[in-house]
């Protein structure tokens, strides 16, 4: 198990290294001259030349990459070209806000999604199964931005229960802070809950059809033992893998949802960076997202191994 964890960690560090090269390469092919973006359209060639030299844009790419990479290792993400501020603090602030949003959503997705999936599987073809099924159909069929707008329309504009958008620091009152999290969180979770519950339902049904569940029934065990000890444990394995992938979706969703709710988090920062072609900001934000995604995968792998003895004990005892 120690070896396994080490192995996964090494792989993830490798992956992040490759990603950093890739991100650097992608941003190099983005159109637009950085110096001209800073100086504006009417800059003289001399001025552009001067800026390029100052920023080190004339050095070989390998040197530029090295400078950028080791900067990040030291915690220096460089300067945003558009905001003309160091990226580090901006990123940290945005990441903090989004992390709360993402963590809240993830907990909801995992708990509610799995619960609904299990209920639907156990009550297969009963009204509650059909209800979950309709709910999850809507979930996977309706895009987040439309849910967001519908949410704002109904709860903010028509009913007036919640503020429509924006962000309020927790320092200015828990209620305000929390009220502004509800909309983005619910919007973000809806699609993913649908996804997770559908998957849990089908994997639970498959497990319930398995031979060892039949064998457990033949032992005359009570239904709850069959469900929770024999079926659920095995049925959760594919769900865990998918939850890790869903963390990726969550970040995609964050870009959209934060835009809809004008929530100043990482997602809006990414969208802003890409829209304005702010190279250092693009590189920094995407690298952070990739890192989070990799960590989520690591967590999923470890959880998977913890639940699955075939990975924990790969060899025979005899």
């Amino acid at each position: 198990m120690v070896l396994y964890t080490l192995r996964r960690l090494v792989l993830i560090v490798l992956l992040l290294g490759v990603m950093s090269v890739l991100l650097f390469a992608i941003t190099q092919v983005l159109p637009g001259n950085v110096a001209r973006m800073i100086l504006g359209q009417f800059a003289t060639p001399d001025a552009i030349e001067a800026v390029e030299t100052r920023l080190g844009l004339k050095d070989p790419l390998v040197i530029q990459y090295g400078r950028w990479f080791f900067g990040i290792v030291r915690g220096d993400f460089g300067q945003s070209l558009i905001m003309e501020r160091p990226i580090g603090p901006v990123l940290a602030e945005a990441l903090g806000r989004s992390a709360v949003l993402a963590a809240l959503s993830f907990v909801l997705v995992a708990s509610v999604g799995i619960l609904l999936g299990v209920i639907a599987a156990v009550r297969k073809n009963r009204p509650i199964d059909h209800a979950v099924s309709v709910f999850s159909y809507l979930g996977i069929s309706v895009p987040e931005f439309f849910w967001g707008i519908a949410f704002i329309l109904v709860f903010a504009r028509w009913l007036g229960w919640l503020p429509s958008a924006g962000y309020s620091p927790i320092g200015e009152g828990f209620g305000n802070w929390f009220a502004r999290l509800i909309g983005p969180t619910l919007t973000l979770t809806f699609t993913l809950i649908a996804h997770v519950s559908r998957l849990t339902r089908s994997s639970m049904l498959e497990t319930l059809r398995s031979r060892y569940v039949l064998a457990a029934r033949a032992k005359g065990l009570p239904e709850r033992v069959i469900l929770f000890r024999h079926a659920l444990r095995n049925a959760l394995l594919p769900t865990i893998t998918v939850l890790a992938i869903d963390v990726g979706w969550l970040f995609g969703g964050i870009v959209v949802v934060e835009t809809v709710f004008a929530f100043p988090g990482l997602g809006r920062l990414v969208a802003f960076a890409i829209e304005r072609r702010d190279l250092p900001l693009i590189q920094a934000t995407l690298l952070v997202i990739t890192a989070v995604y990799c960590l989520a995968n690591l967590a999923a792998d470890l959880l998977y191994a913890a639940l699955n003895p075939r990975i924990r004990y790969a060899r025979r005892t005899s």
Partner: protein
Amino acid sequence: MAPPEAPLLEVEDLCVSYATAAGVLRALHGVSFRLAPGEALGLAGESGSGKSTVALALLGLLGPEAALSARRLRFGGRDLLSLSPEEKRRLRGGGMAIVFQDPFTALNPSLPVGRQVAEPMVFHRGLAESEALAAAIGLLHQVGIPRPEVVARSYPHQLSGGMQQRALIATALAAEPELLILDEPTTALDVTIEAQILDLLESLRRMRRLSILFISHNLGVIHRLCDSVCILYAGEVCETGPTKTVFRDPAHPYTRGLLASLPRLAVGDRPRLSPIPGTLPDLLEPPPGCLFHPRCPYGEPRCRRASPLFSSPGPGRAVRCWRAEEIGGVSWEEAVGGARPLAAGGGPAEKAAPPLVVVRDLRKRYRLGGFWDALGWEKPAGRKLPRPSWAPRFLHALDGVSLAIAPGEVLGLVGESGCGKTTLGRTILRLIDPDDGAIAVDGREIARASEREIRPVRRLAQIVFQNPDSSLNPRKTVGEIIGRPLERFGLATGAQARRRVGELLEMVRLTPSYASRYPHQLSGGEKQRVGIARALATSPRFLVCDEAVSALDVSVQAAVLNLLEDLRRELGLAFLFITHDLSVVAHLAHRVLVMYRGGICEEGTIAQVLRPPFHPYTEALLSAVPRIDGGRSRIRLREEGPAAEFAGRGCRFQQRCPRILGEICRTVTPPPLEPAAGHRILCHHRLETLAAVPSPVDEAAPGAPS
């Protein structure tokens, strides 16, 4: 027999049907039997006979789509039909327990074995979790598991198949049931392991006075374990009675057909098998009258009109046939058209001819696991801290195998699963690339040849596979499947090719009209015939048959075996016949190789291998085969350790050898003994010792059918 006590289990007129999209499927119809306390009853039948449905019906585990009815269904004096779901649950595991066929899928992969064994004690006997666990360890010990404390903490994937099945038996015994239902409990296991499990069941039955309902397609296994037998055909009982009497003197035509289809493990004359013609009736629309009449050689008009009633040909017996009394004197062989003796002078065509296939010192090894799995810790002597090491482990699938096959010869290759026999067959055809060694087919060296150079050999050497469902491309018609080799090798085109496909179909006893069908429209036996026709399309001289009859029911298997024998004679084909079934090899092969863990331990003509002297492994294999005619098993092997542990030193059979001599077996590679020309045994024992063992195989009386 007639036990004075009240029966433990009474089943009368049990009917089960399933509602499917295509109509109502009649899985069981009017099934009746009784089981006395302490009795062992065998339920025998081929696939589709409904035998497993009986078990699920008794346990109340049929799905909601099944409809069940019975005149009487009583267990221990209680009416099973009127039990509440909760009472049924208490009875399952508590009163009656079941052991399923495939132990690996029947154990929960993510729970320790000990807990799974302990569960019934917790829920039926009210033991605390820790008490139950301790009791489970005792139980694991009782079913013959070494180091039960370790095994109790292990997970199913860490145990071998035999150990898994023992653990399942322990689970079934945990709540001390009165009735043990065994549903093909040894079918997934190797024959030596099967023999051990049967021993275990026999002793448990004696010790605990268990009643056993034993479900199997294998008549030999039932003969070994059961007092009485109940033969099922298409969801109906056709014959019941004491096992020995029924198998010695079968009354129902179907029972007779089944027995006549069985290849026998015997030395001497080999009678041609007499298979049952036709296929199982469609249970969506069962034929009127006797269900067996479409396939019955004794049939008369009455059989087509009305379902027969039971009559009793002897004490404790019942048979469902209109003509049971009249046909006593007419054997099945006579009824279906007379038995021809097999192969008078059935040896290879030309004794002096150079061998067609020559294999020398063939080697192939596989790394176990990926790059990362080879990583581990090692602690060299004199160092305090362990350091990481990379030491891949290898499975030697072929470890220096040599053989030769003459034109027209059938070379049998027997061995247990994982011994490398399939790898050998595929490597000879270069479907797998060998690491080392030489392969020559018809004088052409192909071990390292390019695909282009092999091409002429591909025409000469073809293969027939095990699994009829996977060997034909489901998207192609039979005509396309058989026609493709003709096209590929430019042998025939257009109308000529169609004519040739027709000929090939007739050669495997199908009609040319089959060319337009798709595989899913064929029965298992028909698919296997199409697979043979495809292999024959290029007029090969050598066929590898890899378990070619193992997936087929006995009656169908007999027909395919006859077909292969006819083809060998008509076309002068040579075969490498790979199988785990010694009876089939004894029936078909001229010479036999016995393989164990990648190497050959004995080879010789069929008569040499089936008579002493034996290699200890051959002896164990032969004595483990459960048979319906005499022959009690004696030799037992120890459970196998991990396959990779054989370090390449000493005898490869050392870990399980019941006749192990000592250090020499562990360190020195055994020399070949040659008791006769062409007979080789790799063993450290002296020939005289090996020759002194009694033979577990009977000599067949010359000329007498079965």
